[in-house]
């Protein structure tokens, strides 16, 4: 698989999760292991451009896939706009959920751009646009990422700032 643009070959046991392969074998420890049960979102990465939970994926099922982790967001020493917005808006305290929040937010804005509705969308039959990303929409679309420090208001501010830019 290609991880952050680099081809990686590894030998794993079938039961190795993508999360454990990234952290333990590729030493990409930016992706965090929270609940390890698909309930907290701390392990969120992109597979072929989509946000997924790496704790619920088997590494051996990712052959040929393109994986992006938090380490792969920065381009030429420049932070991704979502990363910069999290700093600007003070959108974290302990930081454990932050990688997952940021990976989730990056993909979330792309989903909105592609016209995907959410459970907060009043009429799912109507086309959705990025401009419809209200704070309520952002909260719903980011609900798969828990923050036990409860930084939600600042996280929503950070995401909203980028979504509207």
């Amino acid at each position: 698989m290609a991880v952050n643009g680099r081809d990686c070959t590894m030998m794993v046991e079938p039961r190795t999760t993508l999360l454990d392969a990234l952290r333990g074998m590729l030493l990409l420890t930016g992706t965090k292991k929270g609940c390890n049960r698909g309930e907290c979102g701390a392990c969120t990465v992109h597979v072929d451009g989509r946000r997924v939970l790496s704790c619920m994926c088997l590494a051996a099922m990712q052959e040929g896939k393109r994986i992006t982790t938090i380490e792969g967001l920065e381009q030429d020493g420049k932070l991704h706009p979502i990363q910069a917005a999290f700093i600007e808006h003070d959108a974290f305290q302990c930081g454990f959920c932050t990688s997952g929040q940021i990976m989730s937010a990056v993909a979330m804005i792309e989903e909105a751009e592609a016209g995907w509705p959410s459970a907060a969308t009043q009429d799912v039959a109507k086309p959705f646009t990025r401009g419809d990303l209200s704070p309520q929409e952002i909260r719903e679309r980011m609900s798969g990422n828990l923050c036990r420090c409860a930084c939600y208001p600042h996280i929503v501010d950070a995401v909203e700032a980028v979504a509207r830019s």
Partner: protein
Amino acid sequence: MHPFGLSHAPDVASAIAWHDFDSGLAFIAGGTDLIGLIKDRAALPERLLDINGLSELTQVAPLPEGGIRIGALARMSDVAANPAVRERLPAIAEGLLFAASAQLRNMASIGGNIMQRTRCAYFRDDDDPPCNKRRPGSGCSALRGINRNHAIFGWTESCVATHPSDVAVAFAAMDATVLVRGSSGERSIPFAEFHRLPSNTPERDNVLERGELIIAIEVPARPEGRASHYLKVRDRQSYEFALVSVAAAVAMDGARIRSARLALGGVAHKPWRLPATERALAGIALNDTNKLRAVIALSFADARALTHNAFKVELAQRVVLRALQTAGERA
């Protein structure tokens, strides 16, 4: 996780043949339920067969007469974003969007969604308490344990679990069909007959046999399809399983209901249709709340609450009323 083998299915026929032949083999698609079950030791397959390469099962296609065919490997997020689904069958798009989180919806397949197992905490508990689904014959810990989230319809002393899927409730309301292929050919299972009641074999959630693979779900065109709504009530606003949910679809004659379809989630071992109410709704004005309440109550005469879930009997009736009126306003 326990050690298991993993291979990749080259085509549908091989997948079916291998599953038929090997009683230790389980299909894996999105894995969002199966990996959790393995971690909780509620499933201990010896081998997994990755079916994600079967690309002919990923299509979502509008049917010429107005229905939709959803391939078993279509992802929840793709189905929910599909313009034909959103326009023709909003309750199905909503049923998907109110489930899980965006990450899980990107992973989970439609076939896997209706195959997911109960969220009963005793079933998922790796301390292995008595549970007839986990260990057939060991008893039911929820029957006299903590059963706030459990069934009010169709349960038996052997199991009081509920089915956790949201979209299955919408499929049931629309009388969808599950297309299944096995070594002896293909069969169509009416959605209402796909999931089982617990009876005294609660370890079997549905009627699939070994060697059978879900190919697609077909939702036929219904006069009530467009004016449909999925309403879900839960302990937190998002990313939580239902306490009670309902899929409602209505066809109107001016201000009066011509026909209606109703199915409840979170109340039984399978999506629970309300046939007595559905029959009695014809001719009632959508704003005649008292009459609607009386007709909804007809389906709750046989509700049986457990120690901690009597609230569901009242809550479900209110949720049905609200969903019905919201769906009717879309007509």
